[in-house]
C-alpha cells in the first residue's frame, strides 16, 4: 500500500546450493524478514532509518522493500542460512536432495 522498492539481487549456484546477495542498506536487522517455500524466497524489509531535523535534500527511500526470487530447482529452505552484514543480505540455500512439498512458509533467521 505504501511505496515499495525492489532491491537488486545477485544469485550464484554450485552443485550444492544457491547463493543470493541483496543490497539492503539502511535497514535494521530485525526489520528484515525472509520467508519461502520449496522453490521461492520472499524478502521483505522496512527501511526506516531516518534522522529528524531540517532537510535540504531527501532522496533516500523510506518504506517497505520487497523482493521475491524463484529458483529453477527445488530448494531446501529449512537448511537455509542468511547473514546481514555491511548493508548486504547474503542467503545460502541448499538445493533439495529430494523433492518434497512444504506446506508451511518457513523463515530463515538472519545472523
Amino acid at each position, binding site marked *: 500500500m505504501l511505496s515499495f522498492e525492489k532491491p537488486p539481487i545477485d544469485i550464484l549456484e554450485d552443485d550444492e546450493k544457491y547463493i543470493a546477495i541483496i543490497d539492503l542498506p539502511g535497514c535494521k536487522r530485525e526489520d528484515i524478514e525472509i520467508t519461502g517455500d520449496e522453490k521461492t524466497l520472499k524478502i521483505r524489509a522496512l527501511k526506516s532509518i531516518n534522522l*529528524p531535523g531540517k532537510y535540504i535534500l531527501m532522496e533516500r527511500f523510506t518504506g517497505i522493500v520487497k523482493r521475491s526470487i524463484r529458483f529453477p530447482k527445488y530448494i531446501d529452505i529449512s537448511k537455509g542460512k542468511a547473514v546481514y552484514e555491511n548493508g548486504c543480505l547474503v542467503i545460502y540455500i541448499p538445493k533439495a536432495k529430494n523433492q518434497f512439498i512444504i506446506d508451511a512458509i518457513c523463515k530463515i533467521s538472519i545472523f
Partner: protein
Amino acid sequence: MGQFEDKLDLLELPSTYPLIPTRDVLVFPYMVFPLFIGRSFSIRAVEEALDNNQRYIFLSLQKDKEKEIPTKKDIHEIGVVATIIRMMKLEDNRIKILVQGVSRGRIKELKKVDDYYQVKVKIIEDPEVEETLEVQALKHSLKDLLDKAISLGKQIVPDLVEIIKSVEEPGRLADLVASILDIKAEEAQQILEILDSVERLRVVHDRFLKEVGILELQQKIRISAKEAIEKDQREYFLRQQIKAIQEELGERDEKQEEIENYKKKIEESGMPDEIKEEALKQLKRLEKMHPDSAEAGVIRTYLDWLVELPWNKRTKDRLDLKIAKKILDEDHYDLEKIKERILEYLAVLKLKKENSKDKSIKGPILCFVGPPGVGKTSLGRSIAKALNRKFVRISLGGVRDEAEIRGHRRTYVGAMPGKIIQAIKQAGTKNPVIMLDEVDKIGLDFRGDPTAALLEVLDSEQNKEFVDHYLGVPFDLSEVMFICTANRLDTIPRPLLDRMEVIRLSGYSEEEKLHIAKKYLIPKQLKENGLDDKTVEFSDKAITFLIRGYTREAGVRNLERQIGSIIRKIAKKIIETGKKRKYKITPRLIKKFLGAPIYSTEKEEKDEIGVVTGLAWTEVGGEILKIEVTKMDGKGNLVLTGSLGDVMKESARIAFSYVKSKAKELGIDPEEFGKYDLHIHVPAGAIPKDGPSAGIAITTGTASVFTNRPVRSDVAMTGEITLRGKVLPVGGLKEKILAAKRAEIKTVILPKDNKEEVMSDLPPYVRKSMNLIFVDHIDEVFKIALREEKKEVENQESKS
C-alpha cells in the same frame, strides 16, 4: 507472524498532517507526482513532515488558485494523504518534492501551527466491493481503452501502464486511470470526491472513453489532413524517384528536356500552322520512341531542319535607289544594263510597298551569261549587298541528281533536304539572294533531271509552295531573288531558259580592263596582301603591258592573279630589305618579276596565201582563228579538218561552191578545180567548233588559194556566207571585236546587218580605235582582204 507485521504497524497513518494546498494539480492516491513548493507555509509543512520522521503530508486542492494565503474555506475538504519520496531544496528557496499519494482523506480540522497549516484528517478507505459483472466489464473496458489510447498516441509512462494492468481493485484502478486522464484540476477533484469506488470507476471509464473518442477524432483529422498532404507529397516523391531512376539509367530525362526544347523551338520558329501541326506530330512520335533508336535520330534531324528554317524571317530591303546604285558602282565597273535592272527591281519593290497591300513581291529570276572572270558571281554578291539581303551561292556545276535540288525522301538513311532548302537555312532569311552558279553545267543522268526540278524552283508562280522531298511541307520561295550564272546558253534547256531573264555580260576590252585593274583589282590585291597604294603604284603602261603580255582572256581573273603575284613579290621584297619605299611598277619590273611575256604582242605573221584571220566566239570570250586553206594535187575533193561541226562543214562547202561558181569573176581557170583537192583546217584541232560565222573567212581563204592572192593578216572577219555570196549577220560581235583588238588587228570585216548592234554595244573608244568595215557581199571582202596576185614562182620560193 509477529515481528514484521509489528513493524508495519509503525507505518500506520497518523491522524494529523502538515497541509500543502495545491494549485492546478491534484494528486490521486497511488500516483507519483513531482510538486514545486514555493509558499512559505507549504515549505514549512514539508520541513515539518520530514522532521517528524513520518514524511506524510496532506495535499488538498485550493479552490481559488489566485489566493496566496488560503483559509479553510478556500481548500477542498477531500484531499490525499501523500508520502514524500524525495525532496530537494532549489536555489531560489523553493523546494521540489516527489510525492506519492497514499489514501483519501477528509479534513476534519484545520489549524495554524507555528507558520504552517496542520490538518486533522479522517482517512477514507475504499470499501471492499463485490466483483459484479459491471465492475468486471468496466475494468476490462478500461484496460482496453488504455491500449487504444496508447495506440492513438497518448503518452503514458510504460511502468505505469504495467501497474494499471496489474491492478484489480476497482477503486485503485479508478484512481490510477484518473491520474492519467487529460482533465483539469477541478474535474479531477470531482472524481476524487467520489467515494464509491464502483461509481468512481464508472465515471473514470466514461471520461476515459470520451478522451479516447477525442483522440480518435484527432487521429482521424490528422490522418485525413496528412493524406491530403501525403497524396501530393507521394506523387512528387514518386516523380522524383522516377526521375532519379531514369537519370541513373541515363535516359528519359534528357529526352523530356529535348522534347520541351523542340516544343519551344517550334513555337518560336514562326512556322505556318499546318507545318507546326506536322512538326508537333513528329514530335509526338519522337516522344514515344526510344531516344537511341535510329528512327528517333531521323525525326530529330527532321525537326532540326523544320525549326531552323526561316519561316518568317526576312531582312528589310534597302529601298534607297541612290545607295543601292552607289554600292553597285563601287563593286563593279560598267555593267550598266545589269545595274539598271537591279535598280528597276528596287523601284518596283518600293512602289509596291508604298501603294499596295500585297506585300509579297516576286523576286526576279535573272541569268547572267558571259565568259569567266567578268564578275558574274561577285555581281550577285554586290546585288545582295545593295538590296541588304543575305547572299547564298549554290554551285550547280556537275549536279546531276534531282535529289540534290529537291532533297531525298526521309525514308533514306542520311537523307537531306536539297540545295535550295539548305541555302535558305544557311541564309537564315526567307528573302535572300540565291545564286545558282553554273546552271549551264548541270548534268543529266538516270537519276533524274535536275533542271526539271529547277523548273519548279525558278517559276515565280509555282515556287510559293516549293515542296522539298525531305521536308514534305511547302516552303515559300517567292520572295527569294534567284540569280543564275552561265557561260553559255545553248546547254540550258529551253523551258528553264524561258523562266529566266537573260542578261549578257560580254568580255572587257583592254581599256575596260585597265580601268578595272586600277579601280578594283589593284586596291583589292593590295589590301589582301597587307600593302597600300602608298607603297605600290602601277603605271598605266605597266598595266597594259600586263594585260597584253601575260593574259589573254575576256574577263579579268588572270589579270587579277598576275597583279596579286606582283604585289606579293613586292611584299616579300619589303620584308627582306626591311625598307618600305615606294615601288613604281613598270613594264621592266614586271618582266623581272614574271619573266618574259607569255603572249607575244609582236606581229610576226606575214600575209600568206590561204591563211585567213577569222573571229570566233567561245564561252570564254572572243578568239581569233587562223583558218588555213591549201590546195594539193587531186580530183577536186574537199577535205575538212579541225573538229568542225555540221554547220561549219556546210559553210565550208558553200565557200568552195561559191568560189567554183565565181571562177570566172575571180580569174580562176575552171580546170584548176578538177586538178586539185582542197583542204580546209581550222586550228586548234582538238577544240570542237561549229557555227556559220566563219563562212566569209573560209570563202576568202579558198579564193586566196585559187587566185594565188595572199590574205592580209591584219584583217579579221566574221560573217555567214550564202551561196549567192551575201554576208549574213552573226552573234557575239562584241567579244569578237575585242578579240581582234587584243590581237592588234585593226581592221575587222563585219556583216552590215550587225552594224547597229555593234555601234550600240561597243564602247566608243573601241569603236574609234578600230577600223570596222561593214559589208553586204563577199566581193567587198575580197577587195579588202586579198592582196594583189603573186607569181607562182615567188610563192613557191617563199614556201621553201
